[in-house]
């Protein structure tokens, strides 16, 4: 009995890793397909994009690194799909070295599906170091701030899409994909607080979600999509289930497994404590 109790509160970490791996891998073969509940802040983010008048100017800030693919990719694709379907113009920029390269990769399918043309419906500005100074410069001229070159080294001023967007005050909505700094805080400080931009929504990683909800409650953000769960909700609202929807079963079972281990560990801990008391 004592051995069993000891094992309960001292499970080898390799056993935990193996069972967690199984819990995450199994739903990839046997889908549970549980219904996804929509949070108010995710619905709010969807409504902002959905209700913008056709031809609105949307800045997409890809402020994340490639490691956040599981959470950010599905929400980036869902937002871009919705924006392009609604006939908006999207302008993609980033102060993260990976931001625009990943956006280029992850959005090729969406561009093809919606018939979006580079330079007409969307433009990728490319990586620009020094976030604050670049964003400050966009307040007076986006072409100058980007040195008149896009991600591919082509001239920005030649692109028809640039006639809709000369400076920051032309932006109708900012969608920031936030994984830390620079992120939505910086966009709020540079553009929103200066009155340049009035609508801002955020797609955040799971760990960043609580920080974004504070800004949502304060009215600084008009909507928030957080983590894989938020991305799955957005996919449901857009009507195109993707990798986040598929990933929710894995995430759910992983959470259940961790909780099960926590419960087992605590039962073992309490039983051991009781036994120690008896002995003493």
């Amino acid at each position, binding site marked *: 009995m004592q051995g069993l109790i000891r094992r309960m509160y001292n499970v080898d970490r390799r056993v935990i890793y193996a069972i*967690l791996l199984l819990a995450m891998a199994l739903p990839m073969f046997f889908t549970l397909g549980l*219904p996804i509940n929509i*949070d108010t802040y995710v619905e709010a983010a969807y409504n902002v994009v959905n209700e913008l008048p056709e031809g609105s100017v949307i800045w997409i800030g890809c402020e994340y*690194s490639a490691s956040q693919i599981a959470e950010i990719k599905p929400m980036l694709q869902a937002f871009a799909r919705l924006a392009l379907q609604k006939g908006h113009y999207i302008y993609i920029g980033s102060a993260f070295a990976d931001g625009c390269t990943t956006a280029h990769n992850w959005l090729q399918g969406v561009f093809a599906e919606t018939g979006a043309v580079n330079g007409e419906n969307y433009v990728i500005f490319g990586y620009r170091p020094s976030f604050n*100074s670049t964003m400050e410069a966009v307040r007076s001229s986006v072409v100058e701030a980007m040195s008149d070159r896009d991600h591919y*080294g082509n001239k920005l001023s030649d692109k028809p899409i640039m006639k809709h967007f000369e400076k920051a005050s032309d932006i109708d909505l900012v969608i920031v994909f936030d994984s830390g700094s620079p992120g939505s805080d910086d966009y709020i400080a540079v553009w929103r607080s200066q009155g340049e931009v009035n609508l801002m929504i955020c797609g955040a990683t799971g760990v960043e979600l609580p920080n974004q909800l*504070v800004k949502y409650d304060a009215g600084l953000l008009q909507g928030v999509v957080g983590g894989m769960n938020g991305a799955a909700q957005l996919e449901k609202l857009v009507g195109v289930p993707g990798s986040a929807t598929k990933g929710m079963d894995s995430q759910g079972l992983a959470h259940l497994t961790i909780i099960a281990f926590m419960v087992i560990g605590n039962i073992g801990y309490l039983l051991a404590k009781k036994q120690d008391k008896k002995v003493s």
Partner: protein
Amino acid sequence: MRKTVPIIITFIAGAIMILESYIQSDFLYKFVQSYLARAVTVSTAWAVGLGAVNIIRVHGRRIQNKRPSYFYSIVLLITFFWFSILGFVMQKHNSDVFYLFFYDNILLNLSATMYSVLAFYIGSAAYRSFRVRSIDATMLLLTSIIVMLGAVPIGQAIWPGFPTLSSWIGANINTPVLRAMTIGLTLGGLTQSMRNLIGIERGHLSGGE
């Protein structure tokens, strides 16, 4: 001289940036946009270059002196030069198909793997640390269970109240605490900035007096 000149430059540049936010002046606005903002971009670009040189020096020395695990330094330098060469040589730079082939199949997967491995560490750490040793620890344990179940559809399938309870914890407990922390951090940042601006803080100027 080595310290006085940088302090004067810091003060003047900082004062202009602050004034530009409070005073409506075309001259100040243009000066900040066309000079100071660009100066920061150029400095950042130089810092990236400096970082690259530093990486080569540090890891070059590790390989030269055959320090423990120098094999990883060799891998780092090979990938560093390989991606740099690809970025410079390829016609479309970092959007070239050849560059993207390596980016997608090496960097992207390795980065995602490193990030995903955290799930296993968190699982193991949660099992070991969330023990009912005190009232505080018990509250933490219960909160974590509610939030974890509230974040996934399976939690809602177990009990539909989990998402609501999880949202309540987020809005009424987490948000006020985060707000207080943010205000505290901002005040700390403001104090630190003022210390830098008026030259009280000199640690970054070659350290010590």
